[in-house]
């Protein structure tokens, strides 16, 4: 499997680390248990096209969103993760991570 990194060009998939399905979005901190259960555990697991996050570990260290068919492994598109994840979601996720780090320090 070859992945065309938007920053580095056509590269071996072995250079990338797989994060998984891009569909789950971290709920707001006060969204409740059911929302977090859904986010952490439940997956559509489609047989067909799926959008997923890969990390270019042995390359540019960029995160990319890959659209790939799970029945054939054919890759339809690869774009920087910023193009598919809403800016406010990134900010919320970063804020949540910062809160966790602060809690951990205490």
């Amino acid at each position: 499997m070859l992945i065309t990194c938007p920053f580095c060009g056509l590269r071996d998939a072995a250079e990338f680390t797989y994060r998984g399905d891009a569909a789950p979005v971290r709920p707001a901190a006060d969204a409740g248990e059911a929302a977090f259960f859904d986010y952490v555990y439940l997956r559509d697991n489609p047989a067909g096209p799926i959008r997923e996050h890969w990390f270019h570990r042995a390359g540019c260290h960029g995160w990319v969103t890959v659209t790939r068919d799970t029945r054939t492994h054919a890759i339809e598109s690869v774009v920087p993760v910023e193009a598919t994840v809403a800016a406010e979601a990134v900010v919320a996720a970063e804020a949540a991570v910062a809160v966790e780090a602060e809690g951990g320090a205490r």
Partner: protein
Amino acid sequence: MTYSIASLVAGALTGHRRWKPAWRKPEPKPSYDVVVVGGGGHGLATAYHLAATFGIRNVAVVEKGWIGSGNAGRNTTIIRSNYLLPGNVSFYELSMKLWERQEADLNFNTMVSQRGVLNLYHSDSQRDAYARRGNSMRLNGIDAELLTREEVMARHPYLDYDNARFPIRGGLLQRRGGTARHDGVVWGYARAADRLGVDIIENAEVTGFLREGGRIVGVETSRGAIRAGKVGMAVAGNTSRVASLAGLRLPIESHVLQAFVSEGLKPTVDGVITFGAGHFYVSQSDKGGLVFGGDIDGYNSYAQRGNLPVIRDVCEGGIAVMPMIGRARILRHWGGIMDMSMDGSPIIDRTPIDGLYLNAGWCYGGFKATPASGMTFAHLLARDAPHPTATLLTLDRFRSGAVVDEKGMGAQPNLH
């Protein structure tokens, strides 16, 4: 016909022309007490135990292809019960005990061979982890022995003991572990279930569920609708697809696992050996081929084939621990689709929908679980209560937090 030495001699003396098919090819009836979806080892074992253990004989197994065409025919045939955590330990030991009497139970030679499973360790911390695992096994009445480097050398002199990075310091041995003939297991359960009246219906793909007032009352298949008192799903890598027909989302991802067979070699590898520093497990088949595998590819897949980087990784692991196989050629390799659960352990439970029962989440350990999976799922279907060894393998454990995470990896299926 009951198989015996007499039937074998009679068959041989008549030129093997008089053997009859070992199971029927029935047309589906309009309705059954239980329909099991999935004609792999687990589905057939479930049907067998429904009939043999729980007396429910009005049962059908519906299979989209031919029986054993999925993961039952795509594994590395290892059987073992060397688990650590409550929830898994007693369940897999039940499976081991059922393996030990399987050939007598089924009147079929499934070639169960208790040649030992040896997990090598390569560091002090890994020895401590294996000692802990072995103690957990022994506390549960399961055989486990922690071998020294010298004891491993006596069993397997051909391994690379002085690899600079991963020297072999010893191993955890389960002598009762070993291998079984994977296709034979499918055929044995199919024949034994069929003889008890179970209908095995091949080329019948489930395309939907029949519902009456919120309850599942049967399945739509490519060979027509079949009504059922209860429907049990045992469809491994296709679990999410079939469950989605009933509107369920599950804590499961489908991933591809590759396995390999080398050309035939003279008898060398006595038992199953696993490399603890990489991920490589190997045994030698009775035909002489080395049967081996390693990690899953690591990305969601339904393709039943994998990619080259994992093939290279598995072979590197093999040559690191067993340099002599460097010149052996790979004869065949294949991929199967694993139903990877979010904690690496299986789910045998009712679903939130009345009439629909779930057997899934086998990750890449499903083959060894076949007998216990059948026994416990049949218990659930027959009595509407979990089997005593499967009380922790619930669907609700993810919501409640009582996960059974053998590796401690968290909710990242490709790491289990």
